[in-house]
């Protein structure tokens, strides 16, 4: 570095190639496609829960899967937008959605605590880790799409972008799992499904920054 400023600028100008500005809608399209791949993989590979296949879905399923889907969309939107840096940008909206989704594990905790005080604490089913593992696995497709988008852009806060991409991927993955998972109990959904999103967020925060730093 430290070249003559005029020569330096002339060199950059000489090397200019037309670029397509990154549009948020393209990132959204890419992410939705990745989510659809995850959903298709889960449903085609493992089948669909019976009540959904019969078009008579349980209310708890509708509520929990809806929350995870909205969280996936809101956090993916924020992560995608972080590829285009901007001083004064506000991307805190996803946090309210995360708080809303956090009601599920919190409600599960309250239910567990109430049972515990009643002397018969329920414990989360041991097979729930399957849901968590599938959620994390299928979430990788969404994570890949978001990482590709962020690498193309210039995220000025790679750790936040990584965490958001992780939460989006985890929520998208667990949404795909809810279409298969037959459980309707709060403890299973709050613990295992919620844990999947939390772990994905932590993994995103730890792993993705090194992939998108520029």
């Amino acid at each position, binding site marked *: 570095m430290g070249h003559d400023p005029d020569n330096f600028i002339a060199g*950059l100008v000489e090397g200019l190639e037309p670029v397509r500005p990154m549009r948020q809608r393209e990132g959204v399209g890419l992410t939705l496609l990745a989510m659809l791949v995850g959903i298709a993989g889960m449903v085609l590979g493992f089948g669909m829960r019976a009540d959904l296949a019969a078009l008579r879905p349980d209310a708890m399923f509708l509520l929990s899967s809806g929350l995870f889907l909205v969280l996936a969309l809101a956090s993916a939107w924020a992560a995608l937008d972080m590829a285009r840096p901007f001083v004064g940008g506000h991307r805190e909206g996803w946090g309210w959605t995360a708080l809303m989704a956090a009601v599920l594990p919190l409600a599960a905790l309250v239910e567990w605590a109430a049972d515990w005080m009643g002397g018969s604490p329920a414990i989360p089913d041991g097979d729930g880790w399957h849901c968590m593992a599938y959620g994390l696995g299928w979430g990788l497709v969404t994570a890949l799409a978001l990482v590709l988008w962020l690498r193309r852009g210039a995220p000025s806060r790679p750790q936040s972008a990584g965490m958001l991409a992780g939460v989006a991927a985890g929520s998208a993955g667990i949404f795909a799992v809810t279409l298969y998972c037959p459980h309707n109990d709060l403890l299973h959904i709050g613990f295992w499904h919620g844990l999947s999103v939390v772990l994905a967020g932590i993994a995103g925060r730890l792993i993705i920054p090194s992939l998108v730093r520029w």
Partner: protein
Amino acid sequence: MIADEATLARLAGLAQRGDKQAYAALLGAARSWLLRFYRRRVLPAQIEDLVQDTLLSVHRKLASYDPLRPFTPWLAAIARYRFVDHLRQVYRAEEQSLDHDLPVDSEEEAIAARVSLERLFAALPEAQSRAIELVKIEGRSIAEASQSTGQSESLVKVNIHRGLKRLAAMIERA
């Protein structure tokens, strides 16, 4: 910056489409803006390097500029990112003074104040800001910074670490 926001946004849009003349004008304006942006927080001998480093990032990441948004906040985010990156690099510079007296054009005062590095530093606790200033900007040793601030050497290191972390988290804050 000499050109106004609308002109800069137009130049950046043209540059994205491959217009070299517009790009040269844009980079020239960006360079002038960056020189003033960094001058209070970077030693004079290092400013040119940092400006060129930032312009290189502008060149590589031109697609991340949204022509529907103002140009300066985008450039400022890139400049802040490169600045924090620059602070992370350990170096000890020769003793040089920082220029605190250069005037700011009145027409751009508002936007400059909004995106300035001063504003970023103002959001740091005094102890962290002082430790970063002494060690990372003025190039003093940890022992000298410790003596100057009255903080223990380990506290100076902790304050630098926490301060840089906080600066990185605030890059897009207006």
